[in-house]
């Protein structure tokens, strides 16, 4: 995969930011409409795969993707531990109300899920692309 098609590159240039925007939108609408962390994560991973195919694996492999998934796990578990420290049950949900923002703390858990999905899928993509016969 050393020679990438220029068409793919041009498309990827435009598609990537769009896909990311859509992923963010899908992530936040997940509470009430179809979407959520898992789907947003898979979408981002698909975007990442496009990037990988368009610009080559060496550029994609410069980043240690597994770190993303580890950070995601820390966020998810941390979100569960916070209520524990306040003497409530692990993973207890709360609502954060600050002005116009109305956010369930489960959103942070979902954010962790998203990062884990992106990180793990990208790790697998990159590592498989780096394999040589």
């Amino acid at each position, binding site marked *: 995969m050393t020679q990438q098609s220029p068409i793919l590159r041009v498309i990827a240039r435009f598609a990537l930011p769009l896909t990311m925007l859509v992923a963010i939108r*899908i992530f936040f609408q*997940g*509470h*009430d*409409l*179809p*979407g*959520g*962390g*898992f*789907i947003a994560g*898979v*979408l981002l*991973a*698909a975007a990442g*795969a496009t990037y990988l195919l368009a610009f080559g694996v060496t550029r994609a492999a410069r980043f240690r*993707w*597994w770190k993303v*998934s*580890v950070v*995601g*796990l820390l966020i*998810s*578990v941390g979100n*569960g531990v916070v209520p524990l420290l306040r003497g409530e049950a*692990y*993973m207890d*949900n709360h*609502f954060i109300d600050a002005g116009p923002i109305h956010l*369930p703390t*489960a*959103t942070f*858990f*979902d954010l*962790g*899920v998203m990062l*884990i*999905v992106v*990180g*793990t*899928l990208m*790790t*697998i*993509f990159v*590592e*498989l*692309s*780096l*394999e*040589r*016969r």
Partner: protein
Amino acid sequence: MQPMLPLAVLAPFAAAAAVLLVGRRAPRAHGVLVLIAAVASFIALARIPAGDAVPHFTLPWMPAIDVAFALRGDPFGLFLALLVAGVGAFVALYAIPYMQVEDPVAQRRFFAALAAFMGSMLGIALADDLILLFVFWELTSITSFLLIGFRFADDRAKAGAVLALQVTALGGLAMSVGFLLVGQVTGTFSLSAIAGDRELVARLLASPLAAPALVLVLLGAFTKSAQVPFHFWLPRAMVAPTPVSAYLHAATMVKAGVFLLARMLPLFEGSPLWAPLLTTVGTATMTYGAWRAFRETDLKAILAYTTASTLGLITLLYGLEAPDQDALQILSHALYKGALFLVVGIVEHRVHTRDIRQLGGLARELPWAFAACILGALSMAGIPPLLGFLAKESFYSELLLNPAIGPLLARGVVLTAAVAANALLAAVAARLVVAIFLGPPSAVVASHLGAAARHRDVPPLWISPLALGSGALALGLLGLTTFTDELAAGASSRARARLHLSLVPALGLPLYLTLVTLVLATVVYWKRDRFVALQHQLTFGPSADAHWESMVALVGRIGDAFSARWQNGSLRWYLTLILVAVPALAGYALVTLGLSYRAISGSLADMPWYGFLLCVLLAVATLTAVRATTRLQAAIATTTIGFVVSMLFVVYRSPDILLTQILIETVSTIFVLLVLIFLPPFPRHDLSRSGRMVNAAIAAVFSFAITVLMLLSMTPGLREPDNISTRPGGLLSLSLAEGGGANAVNVIIVDIRAMDTNGEITVLVVVGLCIYGLLRTRREAT
């Protein structure tokens, strides 16, 4: 609430953390930290005021199942805790110079594990909750594994550590099941609550679960205290550094087993199994340990077998339901055996061997160690005025007077065994002193004597053993007053225990038995070479650890055979299993529910024309996949199937699943393309005709079963199980009320069932890391 109890237990754990944090920058501080923690725990426990009320400390831990972080300082528990902290302080003091030759990283590991062990052991002594007791119990197994395997580069150390962990952890697991049974029957895990309630004890004994519970708990106690037939791990654990052997395998950890017996005595003494099991195992261990000890040549193995012997003696006492003198026996043994082990450490440090045949004439070179060894050996032999004498007198009079022993024959057997064991122990004691210290220096000793002694700037090694030995002497001399008697009786696990200890022996049978013991010991020692030859003639059959190892190997072979049959790596075989199991289980469920495909009420009336078109496409794609001749063809066809299926979700208007399905299809297509070039050629026609027919039949049955299941799931009566309904309490209503979201699927994933998701994402992360590690390391290796 007595805050000193948790403080005493936590101090060593804090020291362990501190040792790890201080790091390699201050290697000197490690041992000192452990020493401070031991002294602090000792002072904290000693400052608990004596009174009528038993000090206790309780924090709720898992209140839903009535498990508490409950500590209780009854006299016997406090006694063991003080012993653990006190001997711990001496061992730490000894270990500072002893471990100085090791490199700082190893020292840090050693002292951290030693401190954590001390904390766990204090936890066992003070725990009042069975579950808490089990947790501390397992912690001692793990920390002792780390300590025995301290020199893990050495294969023998590794094997010894693994063996000790296997035996004690297996016993611990059995014990935990026994505890659960006790909790099940009595409804509480609190030891004092059960033991203090006659009705609960009666209910426990009347239950059919009493016998299994007792046997399981005893397995835990016997494995930990190295009782026959689980004695073999203890000599093998002697590869540990000597301070560890002295602390874990003489003074404290092996005492946990007999301590558990003391805790269980009020619960199970009415059981018909208690006395026979304990007296048999105790007598056997007492005799066998002493017998083996005389034959060994490695100093630490000798001491290990004598330890097993004394633990057998204590087990026997519990079997006779005579716990009055348990504190006396434990204290006496801890003092002299700790001293002897530490002396062996000094000898090994000086001349680099533990083989008793190569030693001799060290008295002039190591005068203080010689003094400590004499004190320890005299106490072990039971010679006045040491504490060991009082312990042995007391043991003999118990055997002579105890009403529980029963017929004259049984009393005769137990008495003979006791005299024989004690005579052998006395002969071993004589052998230790003479062979190590007296006579002219042996060749090995002489070759080391020229070298200058090391460690000028640290406390000398002999302080701790001499202190322990002097303790045995002092307590023995105090037998002239009533002090030792009151101390041992007050610390006993039986309330208002009665002992009649006196250094001035009364004329009577116990004294005569002591004389017989000493005469026998003299004879055995005099004719020691012929006696050892006789022992070797009487040895036959494979040893106990050989049996154990063949059992462990058997487990491995069963595992191998199982995976060779069921996990043979053939994807086709796995698929066959799944495709057969799913219809079978589903069919069974449907039959027991009384459902058949006739209940299906679906119709195709609301299917639009493009829906049918999609189904035709689906059929074509599926046939293409089946008939594909290359992997690429098959991959494209299956991808097509996935996308057409997701189009069907458009027809049935479920955008949620549609979105997921399309994205998953995209990602899996990328996967397939990435791995396609690594796959071997497409093996299409390697199956016989009949094999293909069987596969076709399995596929047909499977798809029929899945179709029926899916259609049935849309049938009224099955469609809306209670827990997913919009009714109050159902998941759909919970979603809005508690999660505040209208997308029930997502709210279930991230909020209501967040624990499940938590597990799944953890697996996902681990899988990612594994793939990264596996592929990276393989690439970098080539």
